[in-house]
């Protein structure tokens, strides 16, 4: 008995002692999860800065979204930019019941708009990733640092264009950012682009087989500068047409060029929106392609969104994936840019293109009506078949579901129209020869007829013809004074009525999301909200 006790007590004491001594140390943990690292390669964060505008999060198409409070598949940069820039305009309408869609289509968005909130935070998330890279790795590689600063500038550009007066941060701190005016953001974006330009790689057109494809070089900085100068009057009150033309011209004169030759049945213009657009000469037009791949880089909110949301099951063979969601389609005002007399035939896209005399009129009109009589019905309005996942060679793509086609966020054609418009503005509203030539270059590429002179209104329409459904229309309409606050130009369901009505000019800026106004007392809401 006694020996037992002798044994038990020390044994128990030992156990307790072992337990106690190991306890406090155990509480200081480092992750054992192989997916969590405290140290990384700079390239991995560099990739993330780019990926923020290409995929929804860290888990490919399905999962681990970078933005909270919005459906992950909906949260993609392209999808959000597209919704904000297209559904609010004369180009596109959507019948889905997703929260926020109707408010876009009827121009009734406000500070609680869930998709604008998602877009806003997508942009700031990107800014934070870039700030982290610049804080940790700015000395690693001068070109990479310049590229990350470019992406940050691009995000601020989107914020400036959409919201105008927004919080401004260039480092990660717990200090609540102050609000910059639209002018201040403009100044920042301009000075960043000018400052990084020398460090960016030389402007060199690339295909996916060339190294550096998907990364930005000097041409991207020029084109973004051209874009902010073109819209400078809107952003700052002071027009900068000459600078817009100057930087556009730099892009036009670079090795990036319009894709002018079609392949097989595919037109040169169509090649920009196909599954192998990174592999063909179309890639040389892409100043900034957002990469997608059916297996390695998948997203519900990038190229797939473009081709699936615009197709329904009747058109399944026209997009080359198993996805056809039947949502986004043309408003009649978009069709009017090609068929001013409302005489589009009821036909498949190839025939509509012929009837329009313009390769860009890629519409499917079969079994559909021109008007958006019932916005919730996909057949109510012509379908846009511009995006597909076929290859020019007929080879299959890497997946039947997710497309391989890259999304050309910036392409050379923008430089041509920017140049033409800037010259026309400098020239009292009419194009000079050089400007007309720039427009005609695009029209020739599209096998459309050409003219010697274009009015500003015609240039505005040309922006639509060349870039419809590419996510920039709202910006152009604002610049031409045709968006909110203008009775000159109405489109179907503008302001929420079938025939269209004006809405207030204050809606030319989006509202700062309520969530950020609450979280950051430094912020003041935009007027009118």
């Amino acid at each position: 008995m006694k020996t037992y006790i002798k044994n038990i007590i020390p044994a128990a004491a030992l156990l307790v002692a072992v337990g106690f001594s190991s306890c406090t140390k155990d509480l200081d943990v480092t992750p054992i999860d192989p997916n969590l690292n405290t140290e990384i390669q700079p390239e991995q964060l560099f990739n993330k800065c780019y990926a923020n505008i290409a995929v929804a999060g860290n888990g490919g198409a399905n999962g681990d979204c970078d933005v909270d409070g919005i459906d992950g598949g909906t949260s993609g940069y392209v999808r959000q930019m597209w919704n904000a820039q297209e559904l609010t305009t004369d180009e596109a309408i959507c019948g889905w019941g997703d929260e926020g869609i109707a408010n876009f289509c009827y121009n009734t968005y406000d500070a609680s708009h869930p998709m604008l909130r998602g877009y806003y935070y997508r942009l700031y998330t990107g800014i934070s990733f870039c700030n982290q890279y610049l804080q940790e790795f700015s000395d690693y590689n001068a070109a990479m640092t310049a590229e990350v600063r470019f992406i940050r500038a691009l995000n601020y550009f989107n914020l400036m264009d959409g919201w105008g007066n927004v919080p401004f941060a260039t480092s990660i701190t717990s200090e609540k950012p102050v609000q910059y005016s639209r002018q201040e953001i403009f100044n920042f974006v301009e000075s960043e682009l000018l400052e990084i330009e020398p460090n960016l790689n030389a402007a060199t057109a690339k295909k996916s087989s060339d190294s550096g494809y998907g990364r930005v070089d000097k041409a991207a900085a020029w084109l973004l500068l051209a874009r902010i100068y073109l819209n400078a009057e809107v952003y700052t009150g002071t027009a900068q047409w000459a600078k817009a033309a100057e930087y556009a011209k730099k892009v036009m004169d670079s090795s990036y060029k319009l894709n002018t030759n079609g392949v097989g049945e595919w037109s040169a213009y169509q090649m920009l929106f196909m599954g192998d657009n990174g592999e063909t000469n179309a890639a040389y037009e892409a100043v900034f392609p957002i990469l997608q791949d059916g297996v390695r880089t998948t997203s519900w909110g990038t190229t797939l969104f473009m081709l699936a949301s615009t197709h329904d099951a009747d058109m399944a063979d026209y997009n080359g994936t198993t996805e056809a969601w039947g949502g986004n389609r043309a408003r009649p005002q978009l069709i009017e840019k090609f068929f001013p007399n409302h005489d589009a035939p009821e036909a498949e896209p190839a025939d509509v293109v012929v009837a329009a005399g313009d390769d860009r009129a890629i519409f499917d009109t079969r079994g559909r009506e021109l008007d958006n009589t019932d916005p919730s019905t996909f057949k109510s309005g012509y379908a846009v078949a511009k995006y597909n996942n076929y290859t020019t060679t007929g080879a299959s793509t890497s997946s039947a579901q997710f497309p391989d086609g890259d999304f050309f966020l910036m392409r050379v054609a923008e430089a041509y129209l920017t140049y033409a418009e800037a010259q026309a503005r400098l020239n009292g509203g009419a194009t000079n020869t050089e400007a007309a030539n720039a427009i005609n270059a695009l029209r020739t590429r599209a096998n459309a007829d050409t003219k010697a002179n274009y009015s500003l209104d015609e240039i505005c329409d040309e922006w639509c013809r060349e870039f419809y459904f590419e996510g920039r229309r709202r910006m152009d309409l604002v610049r031409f004074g045709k968006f909110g606050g203008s009775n000159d130009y109405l489109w179907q369901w503008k302001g929420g009525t079938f025939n269209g009505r004006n809405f207030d000019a204050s809606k030319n800026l989006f509202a700062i999301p309520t969530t950020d106004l609450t979280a950051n007392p430094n912020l003041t809401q935009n007027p009118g909200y």
Partner: protein
Amino acid sequence: MKQVNIQFPLRMLGLILGLFLSVSAFAQIDVKGHVKDATGEPIIGATVRVDGTQTATVTDFDGNFVLKAKQGADITVTYVGYQDAKVKAAPNVVVILREDAAVLNEVVVIGYGAVKKSDLTGSVTALKPDSKNKGLVVNAQEMMQGKIAGVNVTSDGGTPGGSSTIRIRGGSSLNASNSPLVVIDGVPMDGNGVKGLANPLSMVNPQDIESFNVLKDASATAIYGSRGSNGVIIITTKKGRKGSTPQVSYAGSVTMSMKKKTVDVLDGDQYRTLAKQIYAGHMSEESILSQLGSANTDWQKEIYRTAWSHDHNVTVAGAFKNLPYRLSLGYTNQQGILKTSDFKRYTAALNLNPSLFEDHLTLNLNAKGMWARSQYANTGAIGAAVAFDPTQPVYDSTAKNFGGYWEWQIPGGSLNDPSWPTTTNRNATSNPVALLNLNDDHAISRSFIGNADIDYKIHGFEDLRLHLTLGADVSEGKQWTDVDAASPAAIYYGNHGWDKITKRNLTLSTYAQYYKDFAKIHHFDIMGGYEWQHFWRSQHNNYWGLYPSTNSEHPGEKHDESTYSYKTENYLVSFFGRMNYILMDRYYITATLRNDGSSRFKDHWKLYPSAAFAYKMSEEKIFKNIDWLSDLKLRLSYGKTGQQEGIGDYNYFAVYAMNTGVGSYYDVSGDGTLARPDAYDPNLKWETTDTYNIGLDFGAFNQRLTFSIDAYYRKTTDLINKADVAAGTNFKNTVWTNIGKMENKGIELTIGAKPIQTKDWFWTIDYNLTYNHNEITALIGGDDPNYFVPTGGIGGGTGVNAQAHAVGHPAYSYYVYQQVYDKEGKPIEGLVVDRNGDGVITEADKYFYKSPTAPVTMGLSSRLEYKNFDFGFTLRASIGNYVFNNLMSGNVNMSAGELYSNGNNYFGNRPVAALDYNWQTYDLEAKLSDHWVQNGSFLKCDNITLGYSFDNLLKMGSYKGVSGRVYATASNVFCITKYKGIDPEVFGGIDNNLYPRPISFILGVNLNF
């Protein structure tokens, strides 16, 4: 014997009590007796006493006793956990003891110890599972349903082997965890399950459970510190008995389950008529109507079946020399009513509880093992069966690529495979029968829970006790998925792979307890201890598709293969103590303190105190003289508890998350991998709840009528909320941070009555009522009434939420538009109230309307026994819970553009009720109208049981024969509700194709050999 030795197994207590009683003899008759319980099992160690004398004894291993008494004298038999019984002295007597969960002497297991129920200062409910009326019980949590005030158990529908959600006093969290801490045989579990086993409660065979003890107020739960806020459920499993001969018993049942109610949808003929009506004159009339089929398929009939289940348990209990043991083996085979779903489980549990050195050293060793196989049906078939076109047949002999099933098809050009000219239309509803049959999805789970309790009363200093618990919980679940290439769920490539979760948790806890009585009127005890726990968990998965052999480029190759693996761990280190002081058996004071260290927070340590006071008024003279009053006690308590489940293990420091899964690379530099800096709050800490409790226990007529009422106020601060951060200040727009506050106020009422207790008749009634009001009082560090957090996604649109958290409202309140009705009271389509009067309908016009959580819940159970017959039932009511009828909200659009869907080229069926609505649009306002928020109050009958007990069956010679019971039970018998959907009991409140809970009929038998 005021101090109850809290570590002794329940049944040994009586034995030891008895040993202290003197046995003396008078010249009287020999009374030979046998004591057994209602199931015929002998009761060992019951105290038998001749009234008015010192004569007493205890029953032996077979439940027998012998003592001397005057003929006709009253003999009282007592045993812990049973009601006292009286017999007249006679040469041969048989005494049947009735179980009594309410007796005051019952020992209640609390955290790190046990107390007599009469000495409780906190709010603790002890529940012995009702062995006679338990219905279809596969999981332990179902045994608590409706039985305990303040505890709400909602099953996740009728999935075989499925789990339930438990909420005690409304829970304390918003975004982290609201599930109570589960302690099994002294080992606190983590809250997670593995594949196939949803949570720790599913790791125990319910047949092995001796008792549940639910700790509700902070006085009881604060000893669990940072894990006590959501309440604690302590499960004690059955043990062997000292000195018992081997007892073999068997419990088995056979169950037939069937669906109760299906959605009333249009049949084929009705649908054809409707379609012809709608598309008359339509521009595509001919082509659309040509898509209609000629069949009359009742799709819901096609997917459900009558399901058979059986359950067998064999137990051997006894003692080998000084070693009491209990070994049980269980087998459950449960079929689901949704075809292709079933659940099989084998369990084994071994308990050894020897005591050595004159009971100074007691050991309690438990090993519980489980092997389960869950076969999951694709539950998408439930919604598909409601929505699928009833004019189409189940099979289509021409559909060679679709497994012979009829499907909506589109051209297959994107597949680039000439042998697949068509593929399934991904927007269309999939054939529900194909979804079920072309799918093999099953999980195999294994779990082992082992623990060793060592309790040592120091020789020569018996007032001091040392206790050590070592526990291990090792579980693994692996789920295999094999979806055929012909299945519409994964057409062409199919979906194959597996996902495995392993967890390994270790516990060491030790404490010392000292207790002492002074001057007869003071009782004092103090306990101090230490606990160390390590929780480790990993997950691996691997999924792939396969190109069919007909693919020209990659025949038979893998497509889209993905692998993922992850590991995580956390530690919890704690010091704790409790002090009890009792003065004159009247005034009780309990104080506890726990200092918890968690690896989940930068500041590891936090202190959780509690204090309680009880006043046993019935001991006062003025009450003592009231004969009928048997108990009157007032309880007051306050305490602080924490909550740390559901919070990431590495949320307080900066880490980069690497990309995971196929499709997640971005090839602009290096190997295309992504590193994302993750958002974090370095100051993250526990959620803390302050609980105030006042309770009154009342008992009359020797506890034949008991009444207990508790009122509580719980205030949670530092509520972890995924809060919006100022844009630009972190790596995500929201971060887990401690900024919210929430309150729960409630009243719990328990009434127990035994109106009849005679020789032949026995009747008990138990009733409980809970009122709980939940309200969020802060969300963003302030009380901005306009701020809300959307939640509760509904079907019918991407990112559409029907609920929100906001200050001033219960969590998960519905946040919807206010419907406008016409004169007849019919909702006007798409017309909602412009509540802010700005002329347009935007999100700002939504308002908070009702909540999915019932403020009032009630349970009523009763058992009536007459001689060998018993009859019992359980009723449960929920009042004021609202349900979002998502099934109807998504199915009332009868427009030409929707019925033959919106360019997506398929017909969708509608519930018959949708004809009345005949809505034409899918406006968001119509979908998010408060019209769909419907009253889900209900009264359900969970079980009705009729049983017959018998003795001495097949008695031969010295063999006493077989005793036992046969019974028939109906489960989920009826539901009375105004709600129009299938079942108003929907956890979370969004009713969208829940796996229906079946009605079940059970025939069972218990046998003791």
